């Protein structure tokens, strides 16, 4: 069973690296926020699995719970921030108005 959990951890790690591509080269800021949220959910799962592998689940579950909470708040904060900072997004109405003013 330990080997199976190691396999699972490795597969999820590969998926995280694939998501990292979207987080680094994503065309817009919004794509990056989505990718970071997805990576956070996967990390929550990986932490629990690592706990199973090292036979210290009672410790890693707490870390994982805290990580899930932090990830949720980070996503909310980022989306709220970029909602008010419209100038950061390219091609938006705010940006076009600015160019028209010039």
């Amino acid at each position: 069973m330990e080997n199976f959990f190691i396999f699972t951890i490795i597969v999820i790690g590969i998926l995280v690296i694939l998501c990292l591509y979207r987080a680094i080269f994503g065309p817009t800021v919004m794509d990056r926020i989505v990718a970071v949220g997805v990576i956070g959910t996967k990390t929550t799962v990986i932490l629990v699995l690592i706990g199973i592998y090292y036979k210290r689940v009672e410790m890693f579950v707490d870390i994982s719970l805290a990580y899930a909470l932090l990830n949720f708040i980070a996503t909310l904060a980022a989306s709220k921030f970029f909602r008010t900072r419209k100038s950061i997004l390219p091609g938006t109405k705010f940006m076009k108005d600015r160019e028209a003013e010039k």
Partner: protein
Amino acid sequence: MIVEYIIDAFVIILVLLGLFFLFTATVGLLRFPDFYCKLQATGKGDTLGAILILLGVILYNLHDFSLNNFLVCLKILFIIIFIFHANPVATHAITKAGLDADVKPLTKEDIRK
């Protein structure tokens, strides 16, 4: 002994199903054209994938039953409930941010081009 093998088989099935749904979510994140469609894939696939894998972990953890193990299972159950509530809320927050920032969603004609 046989009961343990059956439980192990269920754990493996649950975790593999969860891995499949996480995989579809990731491929959707990489393939879909605009970020509203990407959210369609990640909001659903990530939720169910993570929930299935954590359910498998709970089942595996119930092998040797004790109070400590039971508390750990309750904590993992709490993580499941939290993901179940938080993932849709985060998805909605990102969509609303995109809508407020005037990111135009792609339509059928845009994709055909």
